[in-house]
């Protein structure tokens, strides 16, 4: 039975489990890794109850491969991991993008690089989420910054993945995953299912309409589709044709870019303030408290990281004379924010960065803003 509408008190990772079940998850494959393990443990209990499949694979590569296979049978499929496992999944994320396979990957970020800080927070995977695999390809990445978000954005990740047939990453972090908090399951939850082909034995399995998203043939329904990570034509057949490849790669990116307004979300507090803080994930708590200490400070909490919400951010910081980015890495999303801010004529764009495995205190952010460095 799904979690009933109403108020609940759970851990972030547990809220992700319940959100995934609400979204219609019926196939999970994963490999244990801190700090995401509670998602696997939760689903090991919950999936059989809900009539779905839970599978512990031999590694993260097998996990993402299994959910790709499962997705082609028409099921909603997910895996969850953290930095080292996310690194292992990169080749298959590119494969899922190339083959337009809807899957959801939860990455509960910890301190990196390498084995790093397994039990502590970091946000060092945000560039990897977009650029970790070879070639040009689209992904959607969402950043939850509360337990409520862990529930809501998990559902949203499934909806976007189904709608656009793009691998979608829930970029949570250790603090959000392990935080316990109150959240509300609404009376009505919007669920999106992929559009599927119902015709049989046809030779245009990857044909697309004005949405640029092909309807998906489902294995076992008599369509006889061929799926490959090789460059392919609309039949799905491999080709080395320059024009076909160019059209494919550009369409894959364009199907996300064209719908960026639908995909991108951010929350703005005190829009048009002279000074704006920009953050996402767990450090946005401290940024919010720092904002509350000064009347002329506003704040942006990015909920979509990829595609980067450039236009929405530009509107939010338009007229601001100073922008301070707060993130738990050496400045990864900072470059994106800096680009947007500079385009808006804001010259004071600074980075408050922390990589020690803990979230900043509000006082640290306040003194950074006062001290000018």
């Amino acid at each position, binding site marked *: 039975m799904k979690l009933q509408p109403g108020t609940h008190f759970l851990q972030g990772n547990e809220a992700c489990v319940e959100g995934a079940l609400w979204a219609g998850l*019926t*196939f999970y*494959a994963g490999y244990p890794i801190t700090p995401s393990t509670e998602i696997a443990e939760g689903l090991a209990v919950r999936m*059989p109850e809900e009539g779905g*499949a839970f*599978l512990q*694979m*031999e*590694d993260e*590569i*097998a*996990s993402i*491969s*299994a*959910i*790709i*296979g*499962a*997705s*082609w*049978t*028409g*099921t909603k*499929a997910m895996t969850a991991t953290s930095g080292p496992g996310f690194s292992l999944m990169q*080749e*298959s994320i590119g*494969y899922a993008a190339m*083959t337009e396979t809807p899957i959801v990957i939860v990455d509960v970020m910890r301190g990196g690089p390498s084995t790093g800080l397994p039990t502590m927070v970091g946000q060092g995977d945000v560039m990897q989420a977009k650029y970790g695999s070879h070639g040009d390809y689209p992904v959607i990445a969402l950043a939850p910054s509360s337990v409520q978000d862990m529930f809501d954005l998990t559902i949203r990740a499934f909806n976007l993945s189904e709608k656009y047939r793009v691998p979608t990453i829930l970029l949570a972090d250790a603090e959000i995953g392990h935080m316990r908090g109150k959240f509300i399951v609404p009376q009505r939850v919007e669920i999106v299912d992929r559009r599927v082909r119902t015709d*049989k034995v046809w*030779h245009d399995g990857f044909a697309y309409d004005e949405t640029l998203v092909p309807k998906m*043939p489902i*294995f*076992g*329904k*008599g*369509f*006889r*589709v*061929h*799926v*490959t*990570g*090789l460059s392919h034509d609309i039949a799905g*057949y*491999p080709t080395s044709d320059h024009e076909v490849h160019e059209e494919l790669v550009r369409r894959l990116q364009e199907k996300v870019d064209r719908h960026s307004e639908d995909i991108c979300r951010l929350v703005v507090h005190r829009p048009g303030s002279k000074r704006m803080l920009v953050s996402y994930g767990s450090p946005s708590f401290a940024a919010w408290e720092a904002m509350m200490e000064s009347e002329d400070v506003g704040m942006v909490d990015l909920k979509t990281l990829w595609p980067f919400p450039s236009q929405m951010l530009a509107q939010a910081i338009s007229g601001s004379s100073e922008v301070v980015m707060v993130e738990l890495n050496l400045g990864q999303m900072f470059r994106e924010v800096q680009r947007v801010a500079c385009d808006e004529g804001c010259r004071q764009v600074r980075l408050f960065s922390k990589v020690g495995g803990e979230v900043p205190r509000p006082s640290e952010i306040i003194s950074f803003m006062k001290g000018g460095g």
Partner: protein
Amino acid sequence: MEFFDLFREDRWPHMFCPGCGIGTVMNCFHRAFSEMNMDQDRTVFVSGIGCASRIIGYIRADSIHTTHGRALAVATGIKLANPDLNVIVFSGDGDIGAIGGNHFINAARRNVDISVFCINNYIYGMTGGQASTTTPYKSYSTTTPYGSKEYPFDLAEVAVASGANYVARWTIRNVKELTSSMTKAMQKKGFSFVEIASPCPTSFGRRNRMADPTQMFEWLKIISVRKEKSHAWGLDQLDLNIEGRITIGEFIERNRSPYGLIA
């Protein structure tokens, strides 16, 4: 079922080299599949990367050509997400013995109900002839120009040890036995593995004084020994080298219950 009922005529001619063993495998598979009256619309074909993996692109059915080595993991996902589908994997020694070795032993251990046909040509053919984990000791390849210093895997033995329900190995000379093993593999519930010793005159033969396909056929005849004889001769199946022998036959048939989802 006619040949082009099972294969995609619009993709002909195929890409395989003259003298390659894959054509024989496709023929044997066509016979096994049609004699069993399998429903091609309820069958999904899965492969990884390499020459053998390109077979599924020619099959007129739902088929997925995955990343290198991951065919068995993808096949596991398909079978467990929809247990009503028949799942068949075509793969090679690179996928199964090297990059996907972990998936191979774990899929066999898990005993998922899939059939795996592994075309072992003892070389990386698609990339132009580098040594693989089954390249015989002392034989030549572009990455073993002084002869391979490594001992090869016996893939069939690995499958037996890992828990597969059905394991057999034949060369492409043994078309009758191979066809019958393919049938058995598809009928068997649980993980079944058929290794097919296959010639690659282009990439393996050429560097090992067997550039002519007939020489490779002759080599396969000389090195393959039936299980019964091999046991009588006391041959070590693992100690494979260019002058050595490989054992052919059916190695195991058992009925451990396949991986089920609900307890």
